């Protein structure tokens, strides 16, 4: 903080004049936005805790509710798909398998949904105070990470209870998988949150798309089913090009011990390499997304 003199009538601001507004160039602009967000990291922390706390403030069960949804989903898929449709017969520890996939998916879908609405929901703030607007989608990401962590703890406890503790070399897939999902989802959330300001249809469209895309990743069915259906074709490559699919697969590889050590399960070749490439691509996507956001954000205050 600059020195300020407190003497009456002699307040001094030792700061040079700075041009306000965004620099839209690629290198410098991105860097300046990063610095600005970093300067507001305390605010970011407060916004995340606001999102998390305010959500369950008035319910007596509080945070437990955030677990109800994935647990209900788990029950549905376990009974309907695992038992009735018989998927559990070829997938060992079906409950862990589904819950692993759901954990990865809910991180992704929550970032997208909450992120898309973040600017519009905070319109009161956007119109009244200047803070780097990236803060709002990022706060949504932060709150989603918190929910993910809670769910992840449940997953770990479940594996321990079932005696399938994920203590093996494949655990290295876990950070890759989380990083991949985070970069991809954050990039999308940034762009979608800005677009949603101009076109409110986006938030409804996203809800539908997420519903569809849920089935485009091996969450309630295993990769083996996909491979036996479209194995070796271009379609399979397209299927595997989806960063969410790779993220889910990586998560399963790490957390679903009975599957990753089962020779009858199918795992795509060079999964780690595919994930690394996807992370790099998503990183670039994130940079582009930030530039797009930066362009669009200049008119937020008047469009909201």
């Amino acid at each position, binding site marked *: 903080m600059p020195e*300020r003199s407190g003497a*009456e009538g002699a307040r001094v601001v030792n700061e040079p004049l700075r041009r306000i507004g965004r620099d839209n160039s690629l290198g410098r602009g991105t860097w300046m936005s990063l610095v600005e967000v970093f300067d507001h990291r305390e605010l970011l922390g407060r916004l995340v805790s*606001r999102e998390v706390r305010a959500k369950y403030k008035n319910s007596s069960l509080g945070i437990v509710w955030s677990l109800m949804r994935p647990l209900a989903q788990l029950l549905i898929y376990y009974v309907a798909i695992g038992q009735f449709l018989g998927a559990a017969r070829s997938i060992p520890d079906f409950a862990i398998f589904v819950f692993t996939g759901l954990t990865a998916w809910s991180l992704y879908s929550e970032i997208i949904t909450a992120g898309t609405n973040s600017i519009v929901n905070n319109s009161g703030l956007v119109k009244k105070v200047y803070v780097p607007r990236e803060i709002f989608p990022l706060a949504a990401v932060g709150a989603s990470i918190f929910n993910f962590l809670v769910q992840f703890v449940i997953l770990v406890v479940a594996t321990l209870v079932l005696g399938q503790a994920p203590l093996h070399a494949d655990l290295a897939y876990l950070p890759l998988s989380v990083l991949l999902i985070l970069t991809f989802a954050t990039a999308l959330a940034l762009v979608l949150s800005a677009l949603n300001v101009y076109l409110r249809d986006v938030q409804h469209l996203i809800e539908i798309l997420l519903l569809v895309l849920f089935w485009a990743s091996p969450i309630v069915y295993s990769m083996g089913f996909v491979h036996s259906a479209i194995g070796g074709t271009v379609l399979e490559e397209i299927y595997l090009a989806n960063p969410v699919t790779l993220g889910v697969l990586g998560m399963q590889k790490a957390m679903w011990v009975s599957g990753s050590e089962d020779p009858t399960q199918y795992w795509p070749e060079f999964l780690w390499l595919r994930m690394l490439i996807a992370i790099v691509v998503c990183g670039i996507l994130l940079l582009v997304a930030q530039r797009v956001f930066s362009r669009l954000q200049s008119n937020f205050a008047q469009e909201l």
Partner: protein
Amino acid sequence: MAEPLVRIEHVFKRFVLHKDKSLKDRVLYWGSRSKSRSEFHALDDVSLEIGLGETVGLIGHNGSGKSTLLKVIGGIIEASRGDVFRRGRVAALLELGAGFHPDLSGRENVYLNAALLGMSTAETDAVFDDIVEFSGIGEFIDSQVKFYSSGMYVRLAFSVAVHSDPDLLLVDEVLAVGDEPFQLKCMNKIRNFQKEGRTIILVSHSSEQVADVCTRVVVLDGGRVVHDGDVGTGIRVLREGYERDRLAGEEHAPGESAHPAVEIDSVTLSGPDGRPLGGAPLPRGTDVELTIHAHLHEPIEWVTGFSLHSTLGQIVYRLNTEGLGLDMPTVPGRYDIRFVIPATNFGFNRLVVSAGATDGGGEPIALLDPAGTLDFADDPIGAGVVQFEASGTVTPIVA
């Protein structure tokens, strides 16, 4: 002068108004997109420099661009063209409590709002007690803010903003909230800020407030700066603007077609000698004669009178024939009704006269507004809504 705190160079702000908002509309009317957009310039080549320690009032009528300018300075809206330079910490009192979350406690909201204004947790900790003290919230600080009264809400928000140690405080029409003691407290705080050499930019419709605190006034009209300088002239420029608008409105108003029972043709203002008043301001103590020229078309019971109001519309004086106990003739014809106001001592530079007539039951029949204006000389001694030939003495008290 040293380097300014804010420098605005040839700033333009163009708003594009979309009339369609949904995807359906945009697809359906793709071809006629240009028709659904209309542009308007909220700011039109505005250049300003604001130095350290100044208190600047931004005034202008609704839609003149003053709030837009404030938002451009605050960085909330980006200018379409031109540059804005600024230094130091800014706190915007644009809308108090914008960052409050109803479900969180007052304490959590204080920290959140302080963070929005750029304060770190350590800085907030240091002034937290002062914030609570100033707001007068007391023990309620730990209850959820949705249970607060709107006054408490605003007090807490204002309190956070003024404790954020800003170099530049942006205030937009927010001081009108809160009860009277709190408003007084706010104004005192603003004066303190002035003494501490902080810079304040205030948007207000209240000329009294602006005249009270500002050292400089910028008048905006249609996005242009029409006056930048001393406060008195600024307020006069603004009032002339109001009057010009009203006159323009008068001309465009459609004429009454049907004959009402009473018509007020005109009002004559004259001095004590019976001569019409010229343009010169009247000195204190002048007798004023006001004559309403009315035309009675139908034999009814009627009352006529006039009112004097300030250019801002505040009623200053009202008088009618009923109050004077005059018997009004009911025979149709033309009448002159003369009122005499002896020894006027109004403290306003300008009063607007309007004349009207009602029927016996008080239903308005005719209105002539404005019917004329009265200009008064400035009070050389005191200030206020009235003026007196006041005097005073100093007497030493010998014990």
